[in-house]
């Protein structure tokens, strides 16, 4: 019954998306007021129905209704509750339902609250949002119905991939999806503004908080995903340049560029066409990412569908939306008039460097991700990894950091070097000092060395825009910018320190034996079998001590899940403020010793602290922008009320 309700709600939502598209399209073209009046309610209702449908699916997983094919294939009655819930979106159909739900809710929210733009632009925007949504509704209802029933329910479900049985499975996909699909709003606003020829600073101001919201979720999602891979895979790495990681990084790069170019458009009415282009590119990257990850073209823990029909369906949607948007862009770009002028030595100039560098990195990541797929079409199998991505992207990333340290200090439009001479000297001294010190005192590689020096320079530079201003009066978006830039510095510092200073020990230790890595000593007291709700494990009982300090316990495990059967490595992490000890246990050797792999990773946690700071900066900026808008609205209401009083 619940499954049928969910399906009906989904069909109704799809029909409303159709109405929203037609109403918006005709309304924007021909001032058909009656149709136009339907668009916003349709969008809101569609959002409600879609969310309801998604709630139905979650309920089916919670009660483990095995007559539903999706539940039977992906869940198991013995699974802990949190993974039952997360199981609802840890599969192809459920994740697509989450995708359309986020998209519908985003559309509904715009329809509900956004009233600053000309109504025709809003209609075109909502029509574009519905048009994209329709394709994904069709995809679900035709080829991946999440509510399909089984004629004969099995005795119990197939279970969930053990790699996905982790608390992170609850929030990593959801945050990433909100970010991914939230960017559809940028896409729709860009198409709407192009179609109605309203590429104005106001458009950028309206679009910016939505992009900011999606970008915050994307940042948190990528950070969480990186940490998850770090402790779940047991390989000691935090970024593998795996295609699925790249698939989340690419929309982030585009959205980051978009945020910066939108701020130029909002403040200075320049970079109009470029901002539109980035809006289209950002969501295109989300869709390319979805295609790469979910189509089965890459086999990974993220690929649920190995069905070629589904892959081609997503590919067709992709071609339709990206191609369509690019055609609209090509036809209308010439009607977007030139923006305001600025000197290269200005805030705009620095932001152009940011945008060009981010776009170049995006191109590099995209090419590196697609290259193995291209060569495979010609029968040549290759894999592309860190030896390509690290140095090639650094060529653009490191200069960008340099500009990032100084750019926020510059004035809009035109600036003189003399005005920023003092801060530039401070930043340079900090950076060059660290560079020389690290170069003389250690034998770091070139990239970590430059990364370390630039992270210090950016870290110092990130708070200089606050200099000489009252911190209490400083607008929240400026706080946000400073903290986000500081987050980049913290993250880059963590990356550089980890790759330069990490120490590794791989050794077979007898029970009662000892080993060491860096400043740590580790004792292996015992290895014993233990059992969890749906797994058994060999658990190493270890004690570790940092630099002769107190002994702390560490319990790495080799886990055996039985439904489905699979082994995973659960590492033990001992966190200090300045790094992490990472311990994995392997198998028993023939002479009864146990394989242990220990890493001392200085400042590795700063990578994720940096990610969180970046998201926090975004959140502050978002609160700042929204509260300004709210204040303006209430002021407008008061003025209107006063006017009404006067006329009465």
């Amino acid at each position: 019954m619940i499954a049928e309700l969910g399906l009906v709600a989904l069909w109704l939502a799809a029909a409303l998306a159709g109405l929203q598209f037609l109403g918006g399209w005709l309304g924007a073209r021909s001032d058909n007021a009656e149709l136009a009046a339907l668009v916003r309610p349709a969008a809101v209702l569609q959002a409600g129905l879609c969310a309801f449908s998604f709630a139905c699916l979650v309920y089916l997983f919670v009660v483990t209704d095995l007559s539903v094919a999706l539940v039977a294939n992906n869940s198991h009655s013995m699974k802990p509750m949190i993974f039952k819930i997360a199981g609802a979106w840890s599969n192809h159909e459920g994740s697509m339902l989450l995708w359309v739900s986020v998209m519908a809710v985003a559309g509904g929210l715009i329809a509900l609250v956004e009233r600053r733009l000309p109504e025709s632009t809003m209609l075109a925007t909502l029509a574009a949002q519905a048009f994209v949504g329709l394709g994904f509704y069709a995809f679900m209802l035709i080829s991946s119905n999440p509510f399909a029933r089984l004629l004969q329910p099995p005795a119990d479900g197939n279970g969930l991939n053990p790699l996905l049985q982790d608390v992170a499975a609850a929030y990593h996909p959801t945050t990433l999806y909100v970010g991914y699909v939230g960017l559809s709003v940028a896409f729709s606003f860009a198409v709407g503004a192009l179609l109605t020829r309203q590429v104005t600073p106001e458009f950028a101001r309206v679009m910016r908080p939505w992009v900011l919201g999606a970008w915050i979720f994307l940042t948190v999602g990528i950070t969480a995903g990186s940490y998850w891979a770090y402790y779940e895979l047991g390989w000691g790495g935090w970024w593998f340049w795996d295609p699925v990681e790249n698939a989340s990084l690419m929309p982030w790069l585009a959205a980051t560029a978009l945020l910066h170019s939108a701020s130029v458009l909002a403040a200075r009415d320049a970079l109009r066409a470029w901002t539109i282009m980035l809006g289209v590119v950002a969501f295109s990257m989300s869709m390319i990412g979805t295609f790469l990850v979910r189509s089965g073209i890459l086999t990974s823990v993220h690929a649920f569908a190995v069905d070629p029909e589904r892959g081609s369906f997503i590919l067709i949607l992709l071609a339709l939306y990206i191609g369509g948007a690019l055609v609209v862009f090509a036809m209308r770009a010439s009607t977007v008039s030139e923006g305001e002028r600025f000197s290269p030595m200005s805030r705009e100039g620095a932001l152009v460097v940011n945008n060009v560098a981010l776009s170049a990195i995006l191109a590099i990541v995209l090419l590196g991700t697609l290259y193995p797929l291209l060569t495979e079409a010609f029968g040549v199998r290759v894999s592309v990894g860190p030896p390509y991505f690290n140095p090639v992207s650094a060529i653009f990333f490191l200069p960008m950091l340099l500009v990032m340290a100084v750019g926020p200090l510059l004035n809009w439009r035109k600036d003189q070097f003399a005005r920023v001479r003092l801060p530039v000297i401070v930043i340079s001294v900090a950076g060059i000092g660290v560079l020389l010190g690290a170069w003389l005192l250690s034998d770091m590689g070139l990239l970590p060395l430059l990364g370390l020096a630039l992270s210090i320079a950016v870290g110092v530079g990130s708070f200089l825009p606050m200099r000489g201003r009252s911190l209490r009066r400083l607008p929240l978006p400026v706080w946000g910018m400073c903290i986000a830039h500081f987050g980049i510095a913290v993250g880059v510092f963590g990356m550089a320190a980890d790759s330069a200073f990490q120490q590794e020990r791989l050794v077979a230790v007898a029970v009662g034996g000892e080993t060491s890595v860096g400043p740590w000593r580790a004792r292996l007291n015992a290895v014993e079998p233990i059992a969890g709700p749906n797994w058994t494990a060999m658990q190493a009982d270890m004690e570790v001590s940092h630099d002769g300090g107190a002994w702390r316990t560490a319990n790495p495990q080799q886990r055996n899940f039985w439904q489905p059967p699979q082994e995973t490595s659960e590492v033990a992490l001992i966190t200090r403020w300045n790094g992490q000890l990472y311990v994995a246990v392997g198998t028993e050797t023939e002479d009864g010793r146990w394989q242990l792999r220990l890493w001392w990773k200085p400042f590795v946690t700063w990578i994720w602290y940096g990610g969180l700071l970046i998201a926090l900066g975004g959140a502050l900026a978002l609160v700042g922008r929204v509260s300004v808008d709210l204040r303006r609205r209430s002021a407008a209401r008061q003025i209107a009320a006063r006017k009404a009083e006067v006329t009465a």
Partner: protein
Amino acid sequence: MTKTQGIKAKHQRLVLLVVALVALIGAGLLAAWALRSQASYFYLPSEIVAAAPTPGQAVRLGGMVESGSIKPQTDGVTIEFMVVDGAGRIPVRFTGILPALFVEGQGVVADGHMLADGVFVAENVLAKHDENYMPRDLASIDRDELRRQLETSLE
């Protein structure tokens, strides 16, 4: 007065366009060049026998772990084994913790490089996990080609 104030808005747009294009084309060319030199090619044992990659060059080796060939070394963390595909046989050395499903007679993919003496040094070993999740390189090879090749070679 700076120079730019003399530049018309249209010209500025052109300059920005050129800057963006130059950077993107530059990034593209750089990527193309780096991909050709840095991509790690996939080899079957027989392909290495036929034409070995330059020692030290990053490659990816895929095949079956030969039954009875796994030899743990005395340090407890290094093992040596043979990877075969019917027509070729390559000795592999790996120091590290093996994936749990690394077993004799099963498919394996190893990232690493060749030594001059013909030994493949693996830095990372991926084994087939289960039917739903396995390294992409194994997905097709395991099922058709390799299994068949292996069976014919055993007959």
